[in-house]
């Protein structure tokens, strides 16, 4: 227990998953124009929006941004969205988002926005869920929780990384599965309406003796219900608590 103020205070408790990267504070603070260059429907509920952001400073897979819309009278609505694209230096980025029922921002993007419109973005934000591609990564996602994980898969492929990476993605049905045509040998798909939710059986081959040297960095993304369930399965399967990173929607 630290009772003096000499040196940094270290809490007498466990955990504290360290951030993965230093965050660029200038990029995070600045709002930039993003020109919509492409809109692709991914499923009945999800679409991908490609934005040209000329001064984009680059990001790491797993990071997110804040997007804002402004009405003529100055009324502003803003939300966080995960980056779907791998960092590729193109000055363009992609977001994939669900059309949330009654959603003020997603509703506009899904039903009003079109190619040629501009929105405003600031980011990339937060270093906690970022994956620089250095450590073996075990990715668990559900629904649109797969979006930041797909950025990692894309980065892994694009950069030709050999560090182990596995993705387990769950969706209600095949029709609800985002990026259905893009998954490869690294991915296992769990369709929950047909086969039930993610279980310890899905994780077992990857944990314990099945894990790579040095173990996994686990990334979990989805609804709170999924995040609670998946993270509990990881802990019960022996994954260290301080190597589980969780991003919950909300």
């Amino acid at each position: 227990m630290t009772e003096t103020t000499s040196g940094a205070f270290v809490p007498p408790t466990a955990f504290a998953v360290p951030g993965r990267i230093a965050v660029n504070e200038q990029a995070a603070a600045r709002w930039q124009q993003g020109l919509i260059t492409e809109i692709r429907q991914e499923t009945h509920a999800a679409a991908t929006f490609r934005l040209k952001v000329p001064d984009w400073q680059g990001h790491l897979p797993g990071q997110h941004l804040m997007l804002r819309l402004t009405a003529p009278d100055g009324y502003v609505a803003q939300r966080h969205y995960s980056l779907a694209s791998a960092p590729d230096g193109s000055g363009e980025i992609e977001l994939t988002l669900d059309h949330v029922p009654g959603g003020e921002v997603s509703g506009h993007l899904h039903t009003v926005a079109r190619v040629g419109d501009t929105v405003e973005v600031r980011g990339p934000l937060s270093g906690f869920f970022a994956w620089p591609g250095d450590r073996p990564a075990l990715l668990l996602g559900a629904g649109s929780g797969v979006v930041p994980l797909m950025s990692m898969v894309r980065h892994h492929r694009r950069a030709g990384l050999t560090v182990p990476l596995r993705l387990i993605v769950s969706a209600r049905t095949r029709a609800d599965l985002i990026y259905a045509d893009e998954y490869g040998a690294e991915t296992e798909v769990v369709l929950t309406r047909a086969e039930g939710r993610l279980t310890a059986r899905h994780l077992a081959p990857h944990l314990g003796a099945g894990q790579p040297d040095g173990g996994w960095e686990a990334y979990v993304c989805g609804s709170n219900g999924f995040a609670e369930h998946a993270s509990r399965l990881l802990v019960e399967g022996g994954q260290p608590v301080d190597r589980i990173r969780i991003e919950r929607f909300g």
Partner: protein
Amino acid sequence: MTAHDPVPTRGFTGRARAADRDPRLPPGQYDARDTWPVLSAEVTPRLDAADWTLRVGGLVARPRTWTWAEAHALPPSRYAGDIHCVTSWSKFGVRFGGVSLDTFLAGAGGPLPAATHVVAYAHTGYTANLPLADVTGGRAWIVWEYDGEPLPPEHGGPARLIVPHLYFWKSVKWVAGLELLDHDEPGFWEKNGYHHRGDPWREERYAGD
């Protein structure tokens, strides 16, 4: 604040007019209504009340630890009001029950004159830094009730800190203690790009805001 004024978005009208926006909403926030999103970045700990303790240490006259029973024997205090999350939702009229942090600080003999900042830490190791002035004078609580019911684990139960005038990442879940310091030390999110203070009315979301 951010670098330039918002640029109107073609076709966007929004849910409300700027003029009749709810005055309880800080800039850039929306009303989460009946939902209460969970955003913790770590695995929710299974922490029994019997195992919960609260430590107040560092620059106080008499550092000490309270058990669950000892904390519950202190004079109760409530917060009824609004809370604001940096991810842009706000929630109005929430009710928390527990004990004022002032009571715990007094029980530890009070802050020493040199104390200027606090690191609040969780039983998970999560941390948040706060100026001492933001957690004294009836502005912070250790709470174990929400709406008259035990605080659920996902929301920080058995007990969490609440500092409702700041973005809610400062309101450490599963709180284990507070360390009073003579300087500021960034906590978990503050090391990950978030603002050191986090005042929602000044929209202090990220470092540099």
